[in-house]
């Protein structure tokens, strides 16, 4: 579930409030997003993907709260890591689509399937 909005990084663009498909955020009087309905978070990582300031963190657990420390997440390179993987904001320099290895994966899967069925 979403666990962190970095006040330090947030540029109060309001994009996360608009893009969250399950309406987890509200904006406070200063335009800062607030995690208002954490229980409605479906752990889809889409807010992180769209955040232009790498200010959001969705933890791995879908059903339980996870304690996080912003400094620790930054040290582990996790703030903004999903957006970087997709390539959003990279102006095409990075594209998860262009480097998709599904064709090779299919061949590899087929060989495990046949190897194990003999």
């Amino acid at each position: 579930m979403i666990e962190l909005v970095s006040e330090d990084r947030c540029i109060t663009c309001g994009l996360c409030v608009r893009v969250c498909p399950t309406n987890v955020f509200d904006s406070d009087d200063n335009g800062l997003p607030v995690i208002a309905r954490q229980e409605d978070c479906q752990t889809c990582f889409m807010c992180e993907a769209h955040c232009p300031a790498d200010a959001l963190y969705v933890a791995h657990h879908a059903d339980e709260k996870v304690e996080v420390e912003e400094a620790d997440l930054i040290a582990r390179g996790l703030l903004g890591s999903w957006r970087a993987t997709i390539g959003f904001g990279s102006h095409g320099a990075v594209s998860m689509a262009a480097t998709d290895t599904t064709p090779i994966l299919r061949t590899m899967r087929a060989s495990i399937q046949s190897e194990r069925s003999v």
Partner: protein
Amino acid sequence: MSAPADETLSADVLVIGGGPAGAWAAWSAASHGARTVLADKGYLGTSGATAPGGTNFLYVEPDDAKRSRMVEERLASGGGLSEGPWIYRLMEQAYLNIHLVEQWGYRFPLDEHGNLYKAHMQGPEYMELMRRVVRKAGVHVLDQHPALELLSDEHGVGGARGVNRLNGRSWEVRAHAVIIATGGCAFLSKGLGCNVQTGDGQLMASELGVEMSGMEFSRQYATTAAFGTITRNRLLSFASFYNEQGKLVHEGGPRGDHFFAVQLDKGPLFAQLTHADTPDKREILRASTPLWFVPFDRAGIDPFTQKFPIAMRYEGTIRGTGGIRIVGEDCSTAVQGLYAAGDAASREKTAGARSGGGAYNASWAIASGTWAGQGAARYAASQKVEARQRELRPAGRHGLEHTAVTTDPIPVREVVNRVQQEMFPLRINYFRSEPVLAASLERLNQLWPLVQGSVSPGVTAAVQSREAAAMVVNARWMYTAALLRKETRGMHTMAEYPVADERLAHRLLLSGTDRITYRPEYVKARGGSVLPPVIVKEGQPI
């Protein structure tokens, strides 16, 4: 009756839903000249099961022999409830539209022969592209605008009304035609991207008298790391599986159909990607399905070298097959002006009694959206009276402020928890048996009066009360249909009836919300002509 809306718009076509089916429907309607509005509960680009992760597509070169063989295989596995001409048409339409996706700029990878590989797309980039395509086609997009109910008069449907979740204001869109593309219903199971889809469109259509079809074909779960939501199973082909004591129960390769359900019914099950045993292989797995690794990296678990617990999340009618009954080749329903596309619609025409999950449903979203968009645009063009001059009335009957029959507030959390207790357990919904399903349906029926109560103040309560009503009725349809199908066919199984019964070789159409009735629909699997695909002008880079 309810008060006039704060914001009103008028259009030719209103599309409700902003996943892939809604996006293709809105693009198609606008491309056929209709003034089009798309209203989504969430955000066009992030809503739906496709947006967060990767998805396979049915992409078959126009080779007649190959396509014929695939259609025959599909007919055979569909339990006699699918239709050959629709499967052909689906293949052709998906093939053409995926070419457009390429022209618009999606960056397909190369396969081992150096050709573009177009049978898989990464959801974030696909849906971000579709948002731009839809907007460039001139569609008026309303994000965070959940529809709460349809509008209708004696001429059929005429729009919808709902609420803007960001400012709490009510909205109304009057339109000649409405396309429901709100997705299936997975009961807030947190399967990847599935929580937007709570069966709202099915309830709205049913309130106008439209039938549901195939609701019994809903016995579909997907595996994920127990703590996570990434219900994309393919990497588990590289796993070995262990029980709680660490004893190997399966060393990878082919698994029986019921492997995960049977093992998880016995107790905890653990996996490790033992077959990806070199750095090269591990990199290939990562680059194919990057999101799958995100929860592991964050939890500090290395799935290649460490065992992790796995679980199944219920996918309801999203990877199941049932939904709104389509009557026309343009995805029209039995109500004038009302169309259905994507997982909100029954996919029996192409999937039959089996799951349409993966490639077929993803392609169905493309094709049915394209067909519905054209059909709705044509219908709108044929209408003479402006929609805003019609005497339209709100058609909602359950879970809304103006439909309350008691003053007791709808206990949303309690209703959702109790529906989930009936839908999620493998012992009820996967290993189906007559007495267990009958007792469960009885408990679900007891929830129905609870969603006829009053709606608590605030926009969240308004949306969630309606969702609660939609989930209860979808659950009741599912188990009602399951109990009528006293046989095993496609994905539907029944312990007491382990084989198919030829007397039940028909679809089950359900109608009603308070009282549910049914009738059979017999299907002609072969014969009839294949309609030509919908061709829209060549795509330009977007």
